[in-house]
């Protein structure tokens, strides 16, 4: 070797994947150190979509924070709303009418389908199966039409309210929803026919991004990303909220802990969601959809009464009058409530000082936790596997960066 050649050093090629990249699902930025096609090091950088949701929440009353939660995971806004409402209801001690519980469950499961459709579409598109993308968008459109029918909005719905839902659903919605869940399983089969047994799909997903059950728990994974590793953890079963305790459904589990098993888990969740919606539609009770005592948008920002006294509505006029009764200094209490959104466990942590505004609001976003596991999944793999791994953890950067 000549001295000139000996001076040449080999080093990894560092490439910057994102924040503008067609396959990083928004504005995720990965810095990859490549040895040829092999990923030596992968460092995710988040925060390009930070909008300060948690801080904004501190300056708003509880009902006013609700629209902010739409913007967390904009693919499944309804589920975020429900998660937020469930948490605030438990904090304020507001009860929810039975009918509203069932309507919320229907909406949550429709959202799960809508979210998994987007996940399937983008995951398949990243791996190169373009047609699946357009097939699945067709069904998502139908779900968005159902949203529109129920509340008038399609993407950022703000349909659930603290203490129920904004408006009742009518027979037209029930018919359309029934029609949808009757035809949807055949569409799931259609997607599966395209990719489920496709040799290319199998070699691209089997044995890729393997993470054992123990490791998955340690990394804090939740949702289908965790269940693909065979851990039967689902907030809907472990700590039921809304109508889930009255519904019969299964939790699909994976065994091989790889991209393909997580794909199978989500495909099965399509069917379970249909099952849940069907039961909810059958059992749908009558009655109110919104607790009349629930705080409205005119909820006072001042000190809020504990729910125990006989006059709980913290109406605008009433609150200041009762304020002197509160002991000197704020009374702090905190509460963490989690719900199962399509991407995993979405938790809201509140520190309340007894006023109508949260003293501190923290969102436990599954996307944020899942993005942190990317280096573990990607390192040692190839560039193409990075794409498969981003798809399999199902992240939305709006939720990750908040």
């Amino acid at each position, binding site marked *: 070797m000549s001295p000139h050649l000996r001076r040449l050093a080999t080093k990894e*090629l*560092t*490439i*910057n994947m994102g924040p503008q*990249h*067609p*396959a990083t699902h928004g504005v995720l930025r990965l810095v990859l150190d*490549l040895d040829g*096609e092999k990923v030596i090091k992968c460092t995710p950088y988040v925060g390009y979509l930070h909008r300060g949701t948690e801080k904004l929440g501190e300056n708003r009353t509880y009902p006013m924070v609700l629209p902010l939660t739409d913007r967390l995971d904009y693919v499944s806004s309804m589920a975020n709303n429900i998660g937020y409402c469930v948490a605030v209801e438990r904090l304020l001690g507001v009860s929810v009418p039975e009918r509203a519980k069932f309507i919320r469950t229907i909406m949550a499961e429709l959202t799960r389908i809508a979210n998994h459709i987007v996940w399937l579409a983008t995951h*398949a*598109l*990243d*791996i*190169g*199966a*373009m*047609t699946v*993308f*357009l*097939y699945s968008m*067709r069904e998502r459109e139908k779900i968005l039409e159902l949203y529109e029918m129920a509340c008038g909005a399609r993407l950022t719905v703000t349909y659930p309210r603290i203490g129920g839902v904004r408006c009742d659903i009518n027979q037209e919605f029930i018919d359309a929803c029934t029609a949808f869940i009757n035809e949807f399983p055949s569409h799931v089969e259609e997607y599966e026919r*395209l*990719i489920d047994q*496709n040799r*290319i*799909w199998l*070699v*691209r997903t089997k044995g890729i991004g393997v993470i054992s059950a123990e490791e998955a728990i340690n990394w804090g994974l939740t949702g289908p990303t965790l269940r693909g590793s065979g851990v039967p953890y689902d907030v809907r079963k472990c700590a039921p909220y809304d109508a889930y305790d009255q519904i019969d459904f299964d939790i699909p589990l994976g065994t091989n802990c790889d991209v393909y098993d997580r794909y199978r888990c989500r495909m099965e969740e399509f069917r379970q969601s249909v099952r849940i919606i069907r039961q909810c539609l059958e059992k749908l009770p009558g009655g109110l959809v919104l607790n009349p005592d629930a705080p409205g948008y005119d909820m006072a920002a001042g000190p809020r009464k504990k729910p125990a006294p006989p006059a709980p509505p913290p109406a605008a006029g009433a609150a200041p009058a009762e304020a002197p009764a509160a002991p000197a200094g704020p009374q702090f209490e905190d509460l963490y409530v989690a719900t199962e959104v399509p991407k995993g466990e979405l938790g809201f942590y509140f520190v309340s000082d007894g006023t109508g505004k949260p003293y501190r609001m923290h969102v436990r976003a599954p996307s944020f936790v899942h993005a942190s596991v990317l280096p573990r999944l990607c390192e040692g793999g*190839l*560039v*193409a*596997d*990075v*794409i498969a791994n981003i798809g399999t953890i199902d992240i939305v950067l709006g939720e990750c960066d908040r």
Partner: protein
Amino acid sequence: MNPSPYNFTWPFSPPDNIVLVIAIILGKILVMVAAAMLHVAYCTWFERKIIGHMQVRIGPNRVGPFGLLQPIADGIKLFFKEDVIPRPGVGSTKFRIVFKVAPLLVLFATLSSLAVVPVFEAFYIANINIGLLYILALSAVSTYGIIMAGWASDSKYAFLGSLRSSAQLISYEVAMGLSLVGVMMLAGSLNFIDIVKAQQTSWHGMYLIPQFLGYFVFMVSALAETNRAPFDLPEAESELVAGYFVEYSGMRFALFFLGEYIAMIVMSCVAVLCFWGGWGLPPVLYKVVPALNDLPQSVKTFVEAVVFLCKVYSHLFLYYWIRATLPRYRYDQLMRIGWTVLIPLALVNIVITALVKYFF
């Protein structure tokens, strides 16, 4: 004419009306290139329509009836776009000229392949005896354009794309060459006209049937050779954004695009000529419908051209169909298929063909 001092004689005698001959050749080239360009334009339209309908949508339908003017509009748009040429970084030795030449090289290499493609028996630009070899050689030349583009772009994504592309083209070139050996052995020639005529001796008029193994290998390597799905790794959108031409814009991008589509058309032409019987109808048809033999020559020629084009279009349709159906392979998987599946298959095909030809 003075006798040559070195006793040199022309290998062929120049015709008396050399000007006319050259004019005719230039005319043919013009027709071929114009037809190729028009085909590329409408290949994109065809592709978008086909894939659109496969994907439960409509495809282009805004510009002109059925979106027929869409390719023209796209062409005009690309023509008037700014031609961005990246400035090499400080200390970089990369030449802008390489960046500028690369797309031209790709386009020229693929366009030149058209010279030996006979559309029907009497229409070709050059009837050379090694037509098949010439096309294989030129498809290797276009690899240089891709490598040059990736290197001169001074972009890591383009660089990775061009590396993938060169590795892929080199591996699949081998498989493609070997897959055509069976055809060469059966026809005993590398000349396309001879190959088509040789196919007319069987009742079905296609090498597709005896050479199905060769055709399979050829088809897969043609997909890889033209960087089409499921082997579109060099331009894998979800990984490398656009691969080797990520830094190109405007007309230079369009040249790459033209090159890629012409390569697709050329590969389809080769497949049709070598495996699908070229412009010939299956000879059994002439037996079944004797009236076909009585057609005047001009009509026959017309039918031949139509048959050839229809076959090429069906082959292109196959490309689009595959693109709409299959996901993308990973780089290492692609290489493994090339070396451990396709090349052995092609070799097996050669051995079987040789044995069959020797004993029967």
